[in-house]
């Protein structure tokens, strides 16, 4: 393979922020047509908040770290539990019952890519911390298992005009969409809620992991401007038939969160 000429590709010298060692980490993705140093620098300059590092959040955080994002804020309360282990690839057996999931994921991510700054927040997103957490991020990846928590993040992202990748998985199904406030529908526009939703829900780790990596891909696209994010599209995964549906979703002008007169 022809080596990537960093100077020619961007027309500028290698940014000081990206050391040769860091560039070595992402060498193969720099050769993606149209990606290159400029996009890598954007990724390096970005912070993502990942709400919960479970079946969706932990593989998404790992993919963002491996891609070379600059900073990750991982928010998750409680401890690693045995029933998490079918879908949480960043957790370890010896951490069960002892270690907080955000701390566990942060430790593992630092080993995956030591150039990423990882902040472990051992709390769930709540009305008390949501404003502070979203304010520190350029993008939010939402993998929470409760509608209330998802809507809380949605409201704050819309209020702060921060993009949010909304990803969920249950059973053999999942979906991903990207909320860009003022441009795309928000979660409230979709009307997703359920008073009957409860834990535990059935899930296969390969399904949540698939959704997670699509969510990471969305975040990378939004942060770098590379490719086409799912603007106004909800990508639905049917794991039974291994098929996807691209569903066109609309903003609700009367939405109480992101509407014309919220």
């Amino acid at each position: 393979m022809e080596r990537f000429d960093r100077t020619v590709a961007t027309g500028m010298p290698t940014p000081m922020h990206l050391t040769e060692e860091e560039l070595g980490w992402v060498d193969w993705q720099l050769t993606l047509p149209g990606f290159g140093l400029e996009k890598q620098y954007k990724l390096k300059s970005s912070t993502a908040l990942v709400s919960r590092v479970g079946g969706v959040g932990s593989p998404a955080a790992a993919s963002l770290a491996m891609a070379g994002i600059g900073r990750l804020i991982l928010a998750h309360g409680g401890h690693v539990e045995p029933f998490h282990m079918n879908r949480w690839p960043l957790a370890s057996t010896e951490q069960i019952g002892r270690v907080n999931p955000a701390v566990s994921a942060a430790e593992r991510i630092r080993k995956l890519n030591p150039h990423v700054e990882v902040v472990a927040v051992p709390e769930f997103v709540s009305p008390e911390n949501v404003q502070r957490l979203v304010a520190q991020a350029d993008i939010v990846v939402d993998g929470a298992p409760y509608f209330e928590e998802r809507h809380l993040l949605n409201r704050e992202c819309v209020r702060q005009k921060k993009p949010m990748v909304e990803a969920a998985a249950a059973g053999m199904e999942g979906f991903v969409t990207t909320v860009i406030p003022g441009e795309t529908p928000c979660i409230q526009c979709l009307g997703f809620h359920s008073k009957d939703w409860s834990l535990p829900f059935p899930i296969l780790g390969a399904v949540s992991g698939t959704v997670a990596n699509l969510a990471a891909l969305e975040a990378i696209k939004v942060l770098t401007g590379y490719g086409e994010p799912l603007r106004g599209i909800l990508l639905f995964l049917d794991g039974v038939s291994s098929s996807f549906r691209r569903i066109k979703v609309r903003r609700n002008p009367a939405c109480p969160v992101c509407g014309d007169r919220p």
Partner: protein
Amino acid sequence: MQVMFSSNGKLRHLIGAARIRMEVPAETRVVDVLENVAERYGAEARALILGERSGVLVLVNDEMIEQSTIAVSDGDEVTVLLPMAGG
């Protein structure tokens, strides 16, 4: 005319298939298709499709619709997408 109905999650399991074909009269509306499925698959299906405990996305040909009173055409696919929050 014929339309398809598709769903996910618990509703899909109640129906026993991801997609079913339905024979409906001309001038059928989306809401008529939903009523038809709710009638055919029982109270639990009715609660999922038309109940107020969950917010569902109703689609025609993979496009979100705002009003379920719009008419369907021969060959259309009506979808009820149940919400999920698994992470």
